[in-house]
Structure formats: C-alpha cells, structure tokens
C-alpha cells in the first residue's frame, strides 16, 4: 500500500473526516492546505526551512548531506508543515495510505499548537500570517539584488547574515525602531524654581543636560546583531540592509518552532494517536498500519538498541502530554499548550516519576569517544535537556561599542556559556561581518585557560 494514485485518492477523501473529528475533539486551528509532493522536494523544504527561500551555497551542502543520509536509509520524511493562515502541509508522495492518515492527524495537532501557542501567536502577529509568501518575497528581492549587484556581492552579504541568523533578540519586535537619536531633554516646562533661579544671574551658563547629546551606540550591550548591523553598519547599502532584515524576519519565524520543539512534536503525536483511536471511519487495515507507524515515531530507541545517547522529542513530548491530560484534563493541558515553551514545559512538567519511567539519564562523552552514565538527578536533567536551547542555540554575543573610526566591538559572554568560543570559526565569522561592516571588527572571548582573547579582522587592526 505505497503511494499509489488510488491510495492518494482514498487519503484525500479521508482528510475532511479527520478534520471533522479533530474539531469535534476540541482542536482549534487556522485552515491547513495539504499538498503531496515528491520526496526530493520534501528534502529541499526541510533543508531550506521554507518552501521558497533565498539561495545560498550552505543550503546546498545541507541538501547533499541530507540526500546522502536518505540514500543510506537513515531518515525518512513524512511531512513538513509551515504554520500560518492558511498553514501549509507537505506530505511525501511516497507515503502509504496509513502513513498519510497518521501524518494528517499529526499535522492537525501542529496546526492547533501553532494557532494557539503564545510564542507562535506573537511571532505570527508580527511576521504576518503568511510567512511562506513573505519568504518568497524575500527570495525574489534577493534575486533582484543578484541581478543588479552580482551574485558574488549578494553572497558575501548572505554569508554574514545567515552566519548570524540565530543572533536576534526574541524579546524585541520584528519591526524595531533605531535607538532614540538624542537623549531625552531633561528640563521640562519652566517651573517656579527654575524661573527664580535663572533670574539670579542675567547670563546663566548653558545647562549641559539641555544640549541634545548623541547617546552612545549601542546604549547597552546589543544581542540583536542582525538588527544592529542592518541599522548601524557605517557604509551598508540599502539593499544589503534589506537582506539582513529579511534573514532576521525569517529567524523570528523560526524561533517558536525551535523553542517549542519538544512540546510541539509531543502535542502533534498525542493528537495523531488520539484521533486514530477515535476514528471509527478508518479502513481497519489502514488503522493497524497507522498505529504501527505511530509506535515507530514515538519509540525512544532504534531496533536492537539498549540505550540511546539522545532523546527522541516525539517520545518525551508525547509521554509528557499523556500524563498532563490524565492529570489536568484536556482544558488544563490546552492551557499549558497555550502558555508554555520548552523551558517552562520541561521544568514544570517533566516530573521525577516521568523521568524514571522514560529512563532518562545524563551522560558525559569524553573526547576519546568513551561515554559514562552520570546520574538521573532531575534538576540536572532539566538543565542538560535545555542547555542546547538557550539563546536560540547560539553563544551569547553582544555588540558593545562602535569606535570613532567605525571599529565594531563584540563581546562574548563566556560566563553564561561556560567556556570560550572556537577561535578559528569565530575569526571566519568576523571575516564575513567585516565584509559588510567595512571597518575593523573585534571580538573578545576567553582562551582555554580563562584569559582574555581578542580576535580582530583585519588581523592586527
């Protein structure tokens, strides 16, 4: 029962029934367009993160790596879904009927999540309900830039912008104004005291505070590097600024997906399992196959493995939601779904009982490849699970100063991150930045022994 045309027709006929059931069970979501696409296209959209996106050679590398993994049989993509209004769900043309049924229910779970979860709603209210079209507009804009300025120049800008794609400040707005140009004038309307004070001296000295002063840029360490460079690079051209802002806007769109992965995949898995159980209209054969497919998706370990040195977010999320629904009821679970992200979700709802049941443990992998199991201490488990998610998964780096000659100073917060940056890679990134900043770029981090380490591009500047 692989992706034959007949199976595709059967599936399409089932979609409205699955949706009806989902809505009757309490899912509330913006409409979703389903589309069945060839597997190569699936692979592309998963690599690019969006159905139409700007060209860059690094996507080519990821695409080929994915293709190799796929050929070696390591990965199968059933679906890729883009939240929005309408949402877009792409299903692999090679899916069997059972897989498509499962995936449809799964997609509806995602749609419910992204239509209600706070992070998604805030991102969509700013980026707009249709990121897929926005991204296509960006891609078009970049194609025009390539025509006008040449592929090399556009690539240099994308090298820098995409290298910094995680370096946004998610607490800021997508459309963020520049810093105030002048410090607010201190003196308000002349009051009684001021009038009498001025009368004491016929030629009062000008008050320094009254002068409009250029405030320091940035006024505070600025972690929104894409925004900062777009707005304050000394010689950035208009189109280069647009490229930076396009990449930044897409990052705001990607952030909720990144910051709710465990919750979101768990929620979708919970709902595909539940909708399958309640879907009396399914052909029985499809039902059995779909359940089998479900248990493949949410199982923690590959066949024949005793332990896995990674957690399967589908499995952890799914198990947590089952427990939460059992404990708080559907309405309670929906409230958590609306308000949490992975950080609060894991800290509040991954309980000691559940951690034991899921057999979670913390391990340490030495450089020689040997691995030892450390403990199953809950707060430490929470931290270890969430560590890769802080700050959009990137080291915390802030712009701290622009010198008179235009030199940009960046500072790595090594205390938060626990160790210094990889200096070779960091220097390469500074080289990317230097090509758009067009003035020296410096970065301070620490070396292996904890001493200060300053990297400069061009070297020695």
């Amino acid at each position, binding site marked *: 029962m692989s992706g034959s045309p007949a199976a595709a027709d059967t599936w*399409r006929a089932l979609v409205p029934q699955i949706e009806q059931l989902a809505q009757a069970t309490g899912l509330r979501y913006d409409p979703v367009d389903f589309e069945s696409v060839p597997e190569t296209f699936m692979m592309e959209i998963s690599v690019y993160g969006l159905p139409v996106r700007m060209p860059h*050679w690094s996507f080519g590398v990821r695409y080929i790596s994915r293709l190799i993994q796929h050929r070696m049989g390591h990965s199968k993509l059933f679906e890729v879904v883009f939240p929005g209004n309408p949402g877009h769900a792409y299903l692999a043309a090679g899916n069997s009927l059972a897989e498509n049924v499962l995936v449809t229910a799964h997609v509806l779970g995602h749609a419910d999540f992204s239509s209600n979860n706070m992070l998604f709603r805030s991102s969509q209210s700013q980026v707009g309900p249709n990121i897929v079209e926005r991204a296509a507009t960006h891609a078009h804009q970049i194609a025009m830039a390539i025509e006008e300025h040449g592929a090399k120049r556009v690539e240099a800008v994308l090298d820098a912008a995409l290298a910094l794609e995680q370096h946004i400040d998610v607490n800021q707005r997508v459309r963020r104004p520049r810093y105030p140009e002048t410090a607010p004038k201190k003196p308000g309307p002349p009051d009684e005291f001021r009038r009498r004070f001025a009368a004491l001296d016929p030629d009062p000295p000008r008050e320094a505070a009254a002068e409009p002063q250029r405030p320091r840029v940035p006024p505070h360490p600025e972690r929104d590097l894409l925004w900062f460079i777009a707005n304050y690079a000394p010689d950035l051209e208009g189109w280069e600024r647009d490229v930076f802002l396009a990449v930044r806007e897409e990052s705001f769109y990607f952030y909720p997906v990144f910051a709710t992965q465990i919750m979101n995949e768990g929620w979708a898995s919970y709902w595909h399992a539940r909708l399958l159980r309640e879907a009396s209209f399914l052909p029985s054969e499809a039902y059995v196959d779909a359940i089998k497919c479900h248990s493949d998706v949410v199982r923690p370990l590959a066949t024949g493995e005793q332990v896995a040195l990674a957690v399967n977010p589908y499995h952890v999320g799914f198990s947590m939601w089952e427990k939460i629904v059992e404990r708080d009821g559907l309405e309670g679970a929906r409230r958590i779904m609306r308000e949490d992200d992975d950080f609060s979700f894991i800290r509040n709802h991954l309980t000691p009982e559940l951690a034991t049941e899921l057999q979670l443990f913390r391990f340490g992998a030495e450089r020689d490849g040997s691995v030892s199991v450390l403990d199953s201490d809950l707060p430490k488990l929470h931290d270890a699970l969430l560590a890769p998610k802080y700050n959009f998964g990137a080291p915390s780096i802030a712009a701290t100063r622009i010198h008179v000659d235009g030199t940009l100073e960046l500072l790595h917060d090594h205390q938060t991150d626990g160790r210094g940056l990889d200096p070779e890679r960091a220097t390469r990134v500074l080289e990317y930045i230097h090509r758009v900043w067009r003035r020296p770029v410096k970065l301070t981090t620490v070396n292996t022994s904890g001493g200060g380490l300053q990297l400069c591009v061009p070297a020695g500047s």
Partner: protein
Amino acid sequence: MANSQGSALSGWYDLFSRGARDWLRHNEKVAESVRKSLPEIVAGADVLSGGARTVRVPVRFLEHYHFQLRSPERREGVGEGDAQPGDRIGPPDAGRKPGKGEGGRDQGGLEFMLEFQVDDIVDWLWEEMKLPNLQARVGKAEETDWMREGWDRRGARSRLDRRRSFRESIKRRGSQPDGPAFTDEDLRFRQLTRREQPATQAVVFLVMDVSGSMTDDDRKLAKSFFFWAVQGLRRQYRHLDTVFVAHTTEAWEFDEAQFFEVRGSGGTVASTGFAKVREIVAERFDPSRYNVYLFYASDGDNATSDRPDAERGLTEIAAYSNYLGYLEVTASTSRALATETGELFQRLARAGRPTASFAVRKLEEIWDAVRHFFQHQAKAVG
C-alpha cells in the same frame, strides 16, 4: 482543506532543484579554493595514465561558519534507556558516523571528489605562476588546409549559400518583376581552396634514466614533472609530438604507457639516450620544421668514461633545439647538480646553449621546477 492541485503540480517540482543549484554553487566555491592550493594537490595526482584529460581531486565540504563554543573536554547530554549511573557505554553513534563530527551542524569528515579539466588547471597554473608563453623558434613551417574562398555558380548542394543566392534572386527580379522566384542562374556555391598556412609544430623528447639507481619515487617525480611540462608545451603548440626515450647503458623508444613502467638495471650511459634522440630526429622530425624540446630526468649518475660522448651528443642536439631541460631527481640537497650529468648541462649552459637545470627532492617541488624551466626558456629564446 485537501487541494487537488497536488498531483498536477508534482511534475513542476521535478523541473528544478534549488538544492542542486546551491550545491553547484558550493562546488564552484570549492573549485575556487582548491585552485589556490592546486599545485600541491595535483602534483601527485595520478593523471598521466591513459591520457586522461581530467583530474579527480578529493575535497571536503565547505563549512559555513557560525559562532560556536570550543568543543568541551567532556560533552554532556541526555539519553534514554536502561542505564545506571557509572555504566560505561561505547563511543557515541559508533559505526553510524565515520570520522569525527560532534553532530549538530558539523559536517566534518565528509569528502567528495571534484573533477577538473587538465586544460583548465594548466591555464590556472600558468596564470598563477605568471609563466610566459613559449617562443617558437620555427614558425615558418607551413601547413595546408581547406579554406572558404569566393563563390561559384556550380557546386555541391551542401555548399549552397542561401543568403547569397537570395540576394542574386532579388537583384534579378528587380529588372524582371514577373520572373520566377529562383533560377539556376541565381544559385551561388561556396568554394573551397587549399591554402598554405603558417603553423607551429613541436616535438618534445622526454628522456629518462631508468638505470638501477633510479627508485620508484624518482620515476614518479620525473613522471609528474614530464606531465606538467608537456601540458605547458601543449598550451603553445597546436601540434605537439611526444617521444619517450629511456636508457640505461642502452636506449629504447617507448610509448607513453610503457615508458613509466620501465625499470632497468645496471649502469648509466647517458650518451646512448642522446644518440637515440638524434636518430629519431633524423628519421622523423626535421628541425627546420619542428621546434625541438628535450627534458632529461636522471639522478645525475653517469659513467665518467661517457663524458666526451655525452657532451658531444648533447651539444649536437642543442644546436637545433629550442631548449634543453635537465631535471635531477635526488635525495640530497648538498650534492644537487654537482653530479656528472649536472656538470655536463652546466658546461653546456656556460657555452651559451639554451639549457637549464633543476633539482627536485619531493613532489611539492615540481612546480618550482616547472616555473624555473619555463621562465628560463622564455629568456633563453625570447
């Protein structure tokens, strides 16, 4: 919300691939960066056999750099499964990912082969090394070729010039407005004639000492050098003949494939090789029509008794050659070119013959040798 356009559109998706487009751009970038280190990479590449016109070079995926923390002494993570504190587990992902790579966005370890055209490589190298083009000594040699020349009213159909014929028809109808569209009189055919053309042709003699003292490594050095030297000559000459001569105490002509496999034993009598070259020149390559080049590779040992014969033979070749090059493959630096053969070539150079010598010890030095010879050659002749 099912949308029935899906299947109709699927044909369209196959028409282009962004992934493939960006992958090609990545490969271009790799080629650009490889170009910079090309000399080291291709010096040892196995390119000669079978007259291959491409070189396959193993390259790594380029990394798009991001800010990243140093890799920690010990990476911590969370796993699932039946394990107790203190348990030791095999290396992570053993057998799944070859090589290093800590996961994440690290693509480390992945290698692929990139194919380069030999002609492109030679162009890049010559550009990179700022090597001059060679000066032909003999440019007078003529060659005949068929050229288009004029038109006729008769000819083979295949040579009918439609444009010209139309023009004739229009001209004719200007005076006879009611005449037929075409008559036989309108037709024009292109004519061909044999014409003599100046041509530059050349022959290069690659002479190698294959006596017992020449090791496999020595021969490999000579082989790489010969390959690139010949490519350089090919840039200049439309017709380049290559002649392979190997000698020990006697000399033979070989074809390319055998030449580098030949392994002799015993002593070295270089004059036999030079005599063989003279013999072949006399038979097949008239020096008044050919530019003659000779490259001789040896470890420098030659029988002292052969000194007069070798010098005489080489002097005679030098008289009608554009250029003689001597490549000494040697293990020691101190002795370099201070050998029997090295001194032979130096005496020739002092006598004003167009010749140069260079000693190489390892593959990386091949380019120094190529540069040396080509720059020197341009001076010697130009």
